[in-house]
């Protein structure tokens, strides 16, 4: 202890205290304060940048989710549209088919009626022509048959032969 006290120099103690206090003051003013402020600023800016990046990432994810939702919606809409179109198409085909058939039937019926009428007219015409033809023929035949006597006699005989008297 005595040696410790002997080693202790009051002059040096005072000088060290004063010099060190001056050093603290100067270091705080010219070094530590600007350094710590700069470091803090830098850390804050880094933290800010990281936060901003995180935010941007979240926003991106949101956007992507939105996009996906939109795509899904669009897809669903397309599906329904296609389905509707398909339905409309089938309906249209069905309708067209029905209409066409009705029309065709109608046309066939008309045609048939026309054909029937034509046929009837034709038959009637044929009948009248056949009648006049047969009258002509008969006239001619009669004319030729009755032109000579023999034949007239022959005919009378034949007719008499057929008409057996009972």
């Amino acid at each position: 202890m005595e040696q410790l006290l002997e080693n202790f120099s009051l002059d040096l103690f005072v000088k060290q205290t004063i010099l060190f206090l001056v050093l603290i003051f100067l270091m705080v003013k010219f070094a530590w304060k600007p350094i710590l402020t700069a470091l803090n600023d830098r850390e804050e800016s880094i933290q800010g940048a990281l936060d901003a990046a995180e935010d941007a990432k979240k926003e991106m994810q949101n956007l992507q989710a939105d996009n996906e939702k939109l795509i899904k919606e669009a897809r669903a809409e397309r599906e329904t549209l296609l389905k509707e179109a398909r339905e409309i198409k089938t309906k249209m085909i069905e309708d067209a088919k029905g209409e066409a058939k009705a029309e065709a039937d109608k046309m066939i019926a008309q045609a048939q009626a026309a054909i029937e009428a034509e046929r009837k007219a034709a038959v009637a015409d044929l009948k009248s022509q056949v009648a006049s033809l047969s009258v002509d023929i008969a006239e001619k035949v009669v004319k030729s048959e009755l032109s000579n006597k023999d034949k007239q006699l022959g005919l009378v005989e034949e007719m008499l032969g057929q008409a057996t008297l009972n």
Partner: protein
Amino acid sequence: MKVIPKTITSLSFIFLISFTAFATGDKKEGQSSHGDPVNTPEEINEYIQHHVKDSHDFHMFSYFSDGEEHHVGFPLPVILWGENGLSAFMSSAFHHDDDGKEIVAKGESNFVRLHGKIYELNAGATEVSFDEAHHPTNASTPIDLSITKSVFGILLIGLLMLLWFGGLAKQYKKKAIPTGFGRVLEPLVLYVRDEIAKPNIGPKYRKFTGYLMTVFFFIWILNLMGLTPFGFNVTGQLAVTAALALITLVVYLFSSNGHFWSHQLWMPGVPYFLRPLLAVIELAGTLIIKPFSLMVRLFANITAGHIVVMSLIAIGITMQEQMSAVGSTILSFILSLFITLIEVLVAFLQAYIFTMLSALFIGMAVEEPEHH
């Protein structure tokens, strides 16, 4: 890139003052108290004792040639406030005398140097007379404002710290990331802030970080300087560590809050009859034991380190008879190499411990009560 030349300048500055300004003082063989190179255990012991003390001149080494002792180093200014006011002269005026024989007359005052201390002779006295305990009887001690070796070290390190860290601070004005030497300093600053100040003090760390950084780098750089052959032993001076510990004491006393004092003087959660006793113990701890332990730990570790390194180097001389010159040199080289490596670690460790404990004590003083 500007920082590197600056660093080189500051480093070469140290070497310049170390080597170009040296003066060699000669001492005739007859005048010397030893006359021979330092080689007996007693002389080595005295040499080591002399080294760990503060000194008025910057002595690096001595050598003998032609039977003369040459001292290599440079003188430092001696500034005294004595009976007749201020007087200043260079320490070379004492001609390396440390036994009170060389009298320096300045004005009406006569000064002598005795065991590293400067005395002013009483009026009329022409030489020092001693009592039985070898204390001077006819001399007074003036106020010594000299730039001693330790003061020189303090000034040098203070200047270097201002240069280095001021440079680093300047760099931040232009860019966010320092270049050159600043890149080395920045992690150290961050280390002190994040590993010492923040965890020990808590949210109020900002106010005390400046002090803690100054203490940390001051002690660390001076500890490392002490390991160079320049022979600084600043942090091994009791006065220096006492001043540092006292400043820590003042810092944590002045920043303490009511919560701290209520726990100091009237410890809650303890039986009432024990509380006064605890208050005494706590007060003793806060006011005496903590700063005392800070002071002694740093002083003892650094001084012990210097003594051990020098003693191990001295093995090269003292063991020559037993082990031959080569053997003792190899042994001393290996041992002192290892212990020097450990001392490099100790230099950091002691700076860390001093700063960490200072931060811890400040943290205890500013701690806010926990809200339950």
